[in-house]
């Protein structure tokens, strides 16, 4: 059967998800001469990584690594990016092609936006800022975050009061409330799934009081407190703005826990907690940092050395899972645990506690396909049908998986996995089997 869709569309590969894995895969393919369409559901590409402070074990700042890759992707002639867009109804067309529906959601701001933030300044609405994980507020007309790409404002229509101030002040005339959802059909030869992961919702754990106790942060919130554009300008307790001096990390929150339905290890929490602990020791030289762990999984290149470095810097490591947390009147938190080394039940008071939340699958990929579903594994991740020989192969020929969509992994592993997916896609498009 001969299909000729070049007149409809001009892309070879569809990459779903604009996180670090999607970006890397797109870049790899673009440099090999393939035309890539990259679709991201959020307002900016860069995924979760762009929001991190520094990354282990080299401690380079995440922005310094992500932003160049992000801008490289954005201006690569072979890559077309659609942000705030989603893919639906993928179907296989014959042997070699896929069709899919691209849904572009309206952001009510056109490309004419210069990112001047005047609209943001004038907007009277304040809602919780999801990019700062609720630590501060943001406006209803807003630039998602300072290093967002594209740096174009968006209007949060659910929270908009239609006061029209933004439209009035925008010199570029970029505000357009008439925008509507756009749908188009695309045809590609191969697809890379890089939909990433979801973080474990710590509110599920009533015995930790997450969501109830203000001085209980998730690791992502702490990550934001440590970035240069940190919401509080210093590392502070959300409850009363105090500088913390006894900080605790609770590991395996939502991971390695059958009672929560997630028996597997999230692979990154030990390391990012050790990293944050080291950064905190730098930011708050007087603070004590304690990490409560079950097992420290410092397995990658340079990881164990990094762990030892943490020990050397004075981070306190305590073996024992935190069973529950209670709050004192002044906002301090009491952690109850068994100190495994001595076999004794203990209670410790900390003035700031970070829950090192684990990684769960992002089930979005299940909704992508119209007729034949993409198979998943026992833990809800995209199933790798040939884990050893072709780690990025999925149950559908021509569809490949990159990054954390196939299971928990750290950034270097995600990047390698994206490399593998791009090579497999390229082999597939050349018609060979790899």
């Amino acid at each position, binding site marked *: 059967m001969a299909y000729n869709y070049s007149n409809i569309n001009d892309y070879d590969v569809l990459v779903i998800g604009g996180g670090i894995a999607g970006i890397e895969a797109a870049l790899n393919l673009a440099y090999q001469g393939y035309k890539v369409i990259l679709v991201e559901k959020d307002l900016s590409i860069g995924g979760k990584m762009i929001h991190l402070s520094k990354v282990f074990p*080299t*401690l*380079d700042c995440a922005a310094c690594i992500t932003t160049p890759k992000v801008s490289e992707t954005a201006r690569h002639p072979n890559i077309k990016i659609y942000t705030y867009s989603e893919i639906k109804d993928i179907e296989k067309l014959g042997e070699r092609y896929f069709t899919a529906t691209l849904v572009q959601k309206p952001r009510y701001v056109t490309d004419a936006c210069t990112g001047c933030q005047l609209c943001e300044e004038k907007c009277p609405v304040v809602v919780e800022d999801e990019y700062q994980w609720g630590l501060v507020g943001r406006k209803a007309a807003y630039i998602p975050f300072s290093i967002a790409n594209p740096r174009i404002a968006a209007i949060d229509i659910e929270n908009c009061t239609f006061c029209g101030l933004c439209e009035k002040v925008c010199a570029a005339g970029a505000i357009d409330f008439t925008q509507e959802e756009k749908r188009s059909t695309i045809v590609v030869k191969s697809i890379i799934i890089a939909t990433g992961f979801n973080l474990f919702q710590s509110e599920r754990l009533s015995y930790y009081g997450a969501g109830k106790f203000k001085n209980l942060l998730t690791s992502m919130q702490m990550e934001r407190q440590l970035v240069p554009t940190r919401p509080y300008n210093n590392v502070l307790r959300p409850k009363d703005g105090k500088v913390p001096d006894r900080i605790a990390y609770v590991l395996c929150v939502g991971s390695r826990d059958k009672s929560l339905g997630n028996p597997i290890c999230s692979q990154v929490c030990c390391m990012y907690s050790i990293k944050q602990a080291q950064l905190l020791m*730098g930011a708050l030289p007087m603070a004590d940092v304690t990490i409560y762990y079950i097992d420290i999984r410092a397995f990658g290149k340079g990881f164990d050395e990094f762990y030892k470095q943490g020990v050397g810097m004075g981070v306190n490591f305590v073996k024992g899972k935190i069973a529950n947390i209670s709050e004192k009147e002044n906002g301090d938190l009491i952690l109850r645990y068994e100190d495994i080394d001595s076999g004794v039940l203990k209670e410790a008071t900390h003035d700031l506690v970070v829950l090192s939340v684990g990684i769960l699958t992002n089930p979005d990929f299940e909704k992508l396909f119209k007729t034949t579903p993409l198979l998943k594994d026992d833990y809800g991740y995209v199933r790798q049908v040939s884990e050893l020989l072709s780690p990025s192969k999925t149950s559908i020929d021509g569809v490949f998986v990159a990054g954390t969509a196939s299971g928990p992994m750290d950034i270097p592993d995600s990047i390698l996995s994206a490399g593998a997916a791009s090579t497999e896609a390229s082999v597939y498009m050349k018609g060979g089997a790899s």
Partner: protein
Amino acid sequence: MGENQKIPKILVFSTEKISDPAIDLAGLLKKHYPPTVYVVNVPCSSSVKPKWILHAFKKGFDGVFIAADGSDCQYSETCTFNTGEIVRKTHDLMKKKGIEPSRLKMAAICSVCSDPFVKQMKSFIEALI
């Protein structure tokens, strides 16, 4: 060491692929060394001209340090010898000009030798005071 004494200034010729990463690593790991150490990079430690070294002394540098590629050099196995020759030649020139030869030093700094680099810098500064 007296009060308000000037800290000796050191010019380091470092190589892009071998010793630069080590010096960067020292910074990354916050291993401190005196701030009067300035790094100028060159492709290979065997490419440092004696002329440049003498120029540095003339302009007021108290010491010059060549972070040599040693056996890690990717261009030639004779790199250590070549760099040694440059130092020997420059020492002769320095003697002629009445500059203390101990003000020029060389040592191999590998691409992860951040500790040795910091130690070298500290001891060199000590020696120059």
